């Protein structure tokens, strides 16, 4: 009974839209699907989207690891506030996020005059898209790592120190392997968001076809050109990315869960 309710709810709200994307995309056939994806502007949008993800993810990993380490291992005044600030991009409206960067780097913005004097262009160009995407994906890695670092405690690290291992060595040999699946999970989530961000990027993109259109924006452009096959092809490609994300995530979770299950077995033999 409960299973039925849960499945019906998930079916209506998740499976049906998911299926719809593919039905719409392949209505004109697989050939049309490929042809639509191989249009030059769409190819560029795919490249740009992947480029943004490739830039954003490493910086997110470095920041996420540093922030999670700081928040899990030390207590200092203002920690609660810092945690909330780190979380902020997560709950801020994407539109507000985009607006923030326009206010910062736009012509009339805080740094607008400075950038213009040096001939630098951030907004309505790739850097603006990268920065905005970075903003909206900022908390993901830190958010995934933090609970794992907290839950696992620092006993193993301390054991490594007492055995003579230095800080970096301990970090790479003990800490990182311990949290690698949570890290992987965080990367996967921020990657998904980086690939799919629409609202924030839409504000700062400028929608120049073949230059500053990411895949979600390209889907919207094609939609507005009455090119529904193209639009749904891009949408289904993004959905495929999403499904791959879920698979990777599931694998990561599976690896995270095994030690946890064992521990609970030990407690309740």
């Amino acid at each position, binding site marked *: 009974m409960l299973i039925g309710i849960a499945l019906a709810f998930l079916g209506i709200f998740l499976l049906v839209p998911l299926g719809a994307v593919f039905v719409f995309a392949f209505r004109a056939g697989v050939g049309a699907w490929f042809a639509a994806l191989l249009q030059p502007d769409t190819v560029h949008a795919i490249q740009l989207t992947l480029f943004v993800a490739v830039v954003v993810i490493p910086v997110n990993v470095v920041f996420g690891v540093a922030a999670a380490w700081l928040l899990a291992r030390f207590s200092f005044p203002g920690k609660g506030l810092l945690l909330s600030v780190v979380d902020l991009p997560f709950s801020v409206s994407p539109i507000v996020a985009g607006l923030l960067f326009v206010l910062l780097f736009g012509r009339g913005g805080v740094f607008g005059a400075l950038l213009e004097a040096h001939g630098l262009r951030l907004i309505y160009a790739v850097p603006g898209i990268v920065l905005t995407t970075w903003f909206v994906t900022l908390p993901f890695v830190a958010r995934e790592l933090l609970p794992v670092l907290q839950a696992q405690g620092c*006993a*193993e690290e*301390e*054991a*490594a*120190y*007492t*055995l*003579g*291992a*230095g800080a970096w*060595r301990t970090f790479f*040999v*003990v800490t990182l*392997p*311990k949290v690698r699946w949570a890290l992987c999970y965080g990367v996967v989530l921020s990657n998904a968001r980086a690939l799919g961000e629409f609202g924030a990027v839409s504000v700062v993109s400028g929608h120049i076809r073949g230059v500053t259109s990411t895949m979600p924006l390209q889907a919207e452009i094609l939609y507005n050109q009455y090119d529904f096959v193209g639009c749904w092809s891009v949408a289904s490609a993004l959905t495929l990315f999403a499904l791959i994300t879920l698979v990777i995530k599931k694998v990561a979770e599976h690896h995270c869960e095994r*030690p946890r299950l*064992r521990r609970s077995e*030990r407690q309740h033999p």
Partner: protein
Amino acid sequence: MSVDVVDLEKSYDTAPIVRRVSFSAPTAAITALIGPSGSGKTTLLRLIAGLEIADKGRILIAGRDVTTTTVQCRGIGLVFQGYALFPHLSVEDNIAFGLRVRKQPREQIEARVTEMLRLVQLEHLRRRRPADLSGGQRQRIAFARALATEPAVLLLDEPFGALDARVRAELREWLTHLHEETRTTTLLVTHDQDEALEVSQHVVVLLDGEVAQMGAPQEVYDEPATPATASFLGASPLKAPSVGGRDAVAFVRPADVRLTRAPLDDVSAGRFGTVERSKIVGARVKLVLRLVQGGERVDVDVGRDEFEALGARAGDVVVLDVRNARVFLGDYAI
């Protein structure tokens, strides 16, 4: 390679945890740090290991001041309460960890790991992961890992805390043997006084962040320095005749009381108590008595045959013969 702690202090958020602690752990002996939970013994151990920074005081290992030395350079081995084995490494890699960090040649590491596994008698588990081991096995691997680097001092933080009674007893004996073999200066933190008495050659009693007493196990057991120590070591207080107008308290252990049938005609001589209840626990019997004069409760622990010879039932009055008691006037022992 003694460990000397001088006037060590440590507070968390202004709450003092360790207050002016000084003691010495002699070379090649097992020194037990005992005290109830919250007495600061684990913090003290972490301070010695270098995992916490002391607010004040000094720590010397083999006469060398290591107060500001980093944890990596102190030359200590630490066995953690929850073992803290690296879950992603095999048993062998866990033991080799400290040696690899020291960049020892491969064959030497190999040999040392084998030696350590033999020492803890777990050669057959070499390639297993910690998750596949039993609690006792993990415990022994943790010892092997800590000893592999030949530390000057071995620190043990409640090493048997998470194990069941039988394995605990086994490992205590095993630890004694291990220590005889390695002769490493060892500091053992435990809340279990029996464990401390059985394993160590030197005992430091910590109460409320302060050293309450230290000395040889038997000495500490027999002559607790303060009422608090006596109480921690299992004695219960009994009102004693006042001395010089001041209240005196006698601390009596359940095993230090003999019971005999009360003669029916004379109830004024000696101490009389009414049996409230009794419980046979294996070979021993635990009784709860209430003194006829004053109504204080006294716990008594006698042998089964002694109890059966006594033949006392609930409500019977018996004579208490206190063999050994520590009497305090205020805080002073007499």
